[in-house]
C-alpha cells in the first residue's frame, strides 16, 4: 500500500471509547444511467438521524441499494448532495471516505486468503493504527460479535459457517470504529434461525454503539424488527413513506405502502409491542398449570403462545420466576388502544 498518511482518518481515541453515529443528509440525490430511460434514483431527499437504524425497503429494482451505495460513493451520484456530519462526501477522496464508513453486504465478501484476524484488521491497518491497538481491537470486535478470539483469530473464512462468517463481516465493518455503517441485506444469505439470532445480537450491539446505520432489505418483517425508521421506496427510490415502524403499520401512507406491508399488519404491529408495557395481573392459584412467557416477549409472541397452547392466560416470568400473568383480554385491550391512537393521529 502506497497510501500517504491521512490526517483526517486517524482517530486517536482509545479502542475502548467508540465513536457514536453522525447524521447523514441526502439532498435531491439522483442517479441516471446513460442507457436507461428513467432515473435509477430520482431526486431522493432524506435525513438520517445520528445513531439510528434507518431501513431502506422496497421491491427489487426500486433503487434502494443504489441509494445506499451512493453514500460511500461506490456509485457516483449524477446530481445532488450527500452530507455526512455536515461534510459533503462528493468533495472527499472516495477511497479514504470509505475507510470511515462500515460496509456489510449479503455476500459477506470475507477475503478467503486472509485469516479472520487479517480480515478484521484490514481497515485499521490501512489507517496505520499501531500493532498493539490493532490486536486489541480485533479481539474486542470478535468478542462483540460473539466469537471467542482464541478460537477464531487464526482461522480462515472457509472454516466458518455462514452465520459465523457474517459475524466476522460485521466485526470487520466495525473494526475502525466508523460512525456510519452501510448494510446491504446483511443477513440475507443466512438461514432463518441464525438470521433471527444475528438480528437480535446486532440490535444489542447497536444499543451499545449507537452508530448511524443505513440498512437495505426487501424483507418488510426485517425492516420492522431492525428499524428505528423505515423508508418505503417505490421505483426510482421515490419515498412512499418515511416513518417509524409503528406508524407505517398503523397508518400506511398509500396503497403502495399498504401492499408492501402485506397481510396481517395488526399482528406485525404487535411484534413491536413489549409485554413490559402492560399492567400484569397477579398470579392466581389457578394459573399454576398455565404456560409461561418471559417478560421481554412481544405481544405477538404472547398471542402466539396463547394460540399454541389454547390458553387465554399465561404466567409471565422474569429470570424464570413468575411475576404476574397476562390474559387475552389484556392483549385485546392494548390492540384497541393502539387503534385509537392511530385514528387520533390520522385525524390530526
Amino acid at each position, binding site marked *: *500500500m*502506497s*497510501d500517504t498518511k491521512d490526517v483526517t482518518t486517524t482517530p486517536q481515541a482509545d479502542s475502548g471509547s467508540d465513536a457514536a453515529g453522525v447524521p447523514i443528509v441526502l439532498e435531491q440525490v439522483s442517479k441516471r444511467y446513460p442507457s436507461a430511460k428513467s432515473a435509477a434514483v430520482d431526486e431522493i431527499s432524506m435525513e438520517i438521524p445520528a445513531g439510528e437504524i434507518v431501513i431502506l425497503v422496497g421491491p427489487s429494482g426500486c433503487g434502494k441499494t443504489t441509494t445506499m451505495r451512493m453514500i*460511500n460513493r*461506490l456509485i457516483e451520484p449524477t446530481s445532488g448532495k450527500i452530507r455526512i456530519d455536515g461534510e459533503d462526501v462528493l468533495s472527499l477522496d472516495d*477511497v*479514504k*471516505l*470509505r*475507510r*470511515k*464508513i462500515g*460496509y456489510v*453486504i*449479503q*455476500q*459477506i*465478501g*470475507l*477475503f*478467503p*486468503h*486472509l*485469516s479472520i484476524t487479517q480480515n478484521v484488521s*484490514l*481497515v485499521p491497518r*490501512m489507517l496505520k493504527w499501531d500493532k498493539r491497538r490493532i490486536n486489541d481491537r480485533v479481539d474486542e470486535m470478535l468478542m462483540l460479535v460473539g466469537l471467542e478470539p482464541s478460537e477464531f483469530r487464526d482461522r*480462515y*473464512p*472457509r472454516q*466458518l*459457517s*455462514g*452465520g459465523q*462468517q457474517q459475524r466476522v*463481516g460485521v466485526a*470487520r*465493518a466495525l473494526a475502525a470504529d466508523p460512525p456510519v455503517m*452501510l448494510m446491504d441485506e446483511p443477513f440475507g*444469505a*443466512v*438461514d*432463518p434461525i*441464525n438470521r433471527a439470532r444475528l438480528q437480535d445480537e446486532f440490535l444489542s450491539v447497536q444499543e451499545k454503539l449507537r452508530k448511524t446505520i443505513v440498512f437495505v432489505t426487501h424483507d418488510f418483517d426485517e425492516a420492522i424488527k431492525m428499524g428505528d425508521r423505515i423508508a418505503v421506496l417505490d421505483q426510482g427510490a421515490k419515498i412512499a413513506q418515511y416513518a417509524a415502524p409503528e406508524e407505517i403499520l398503523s397508518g400506511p401512507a398509500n396503497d403502495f405502502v399498504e401492499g408492501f406491508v402485506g397481510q396481517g399488519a395488526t399482528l406485525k404491529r404487535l411484534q413491536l409491542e413489549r409485554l413490559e408495557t402492560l399492567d400484569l395481573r397477579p398470579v392466581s392459584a389457578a394459573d399454576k398449570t398455565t404456560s409461561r412467557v418471559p417478560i421481554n416477549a412481544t405481544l405477538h409472541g404472547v398471542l402466539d403462545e396463547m394460540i399454541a397452547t389454547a390458553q387465554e392466560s399465561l404466567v409471565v416470568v422474569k429470570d424464570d420466576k413468575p411475576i404476574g400473568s397476562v390474559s387475552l383480554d389484556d392483549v385485546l385491550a392494548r390492540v384497541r388502544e393502539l387503534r385509537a391512537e392511530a385514528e387520533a393521529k390520522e385525524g390530526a
Partner: protein
Amino acid sequence: MAVQLEQRPLDEAATSIIETGLRPERSFGWRDLVTPAVCAVLVATEIWYLSTRDLDAVEASQLEASKLWDQTIQHIWISLAIAGMVLGVAIPLGVLVTRRRTRWIAPFVLLVGNVGQAAPTVGLLAIVGGFWLGFWAVALILGAYAMLSVLRNTIVGLQQVDPGVLDAARGMGMSPTAILFRVEFPLAVPVIGAGARTALVLAVATVPLGQNLGAGGLGATLFAGIGQNRDVTIVAASLFIAVLAVLMDWVGAMVQRLLTPKGIRAA
C-alpha cells in the same frame, strides 16, 4: 417416507456458495516426490543402458556427459527466459483486459494471442531464420506460441474472483492497486500458475525446434543424432528433453502451491 434425504444445514450451503469457487490446492506430502523419483529412475536407466552399450566414435562424442550437462543447463535457462518473458508480457495484458477502462483492448490482445498460438511454429522459425538468428529470434517466436496459455489463464483467474469479495474490498476503502495486488492476484495464483506452467512446458518442448536459429540447448544433440542417423543419440536426447519438461512442470507446481495463500489451500 422411506427415503432419507441428507440434510445439509443452510448455513453450510451458504458457506460453500460464498467460497471462492476455486479448487483448493492441497498441502505438500509424499505424493509430491513421485514425479522426481520416476524421472530419476528413467534417467538412471538410460545412463546405465548407455554405459553397457558399445558406442561408436560419433555417438560417443554426441553423448559426452559434460556436453549433455552443459546443454541441459542451457536448455533450462532458455526455457526460463522464454517463460519469464511470456509472464512479463501476458500478465500485465491480462490485467489490462480485465480493468474496466482498458477492457476495449481485449479483442486485439486475444487476436494476437490466438495468432501466436495458431501460427505453425516450425514454419515461423524457418521464415524468421532466413534473416534473423540467435536467442532473441527464437525466444520471440516460441514466446508468442506460449503466450496465449498465460494470457487466457490470467484473464480467467482474475475474472473468477468472487464479485462479493471485490465489492467488500472496494467498500472498505481499498485502492484499486491494493485490490489488484492484495486480493485479486493472491486469489488468482492457482489459475495463473497453471497457465505459467503450461508456458514453461511448451518452452522446454519447443526450444529444440529453434536449433537451426542457434538457440542452443539439448536440441543440438537431438538434431545431430537425426542428421547422422544415430538412433541411440536421438532416443537419449529425446528422453532428456521429455524428463526436463516434466521436471520443470513439477518445479512449477511446487512454486505455484507455495505462492497459493494458505486460506485457499485445501487442509
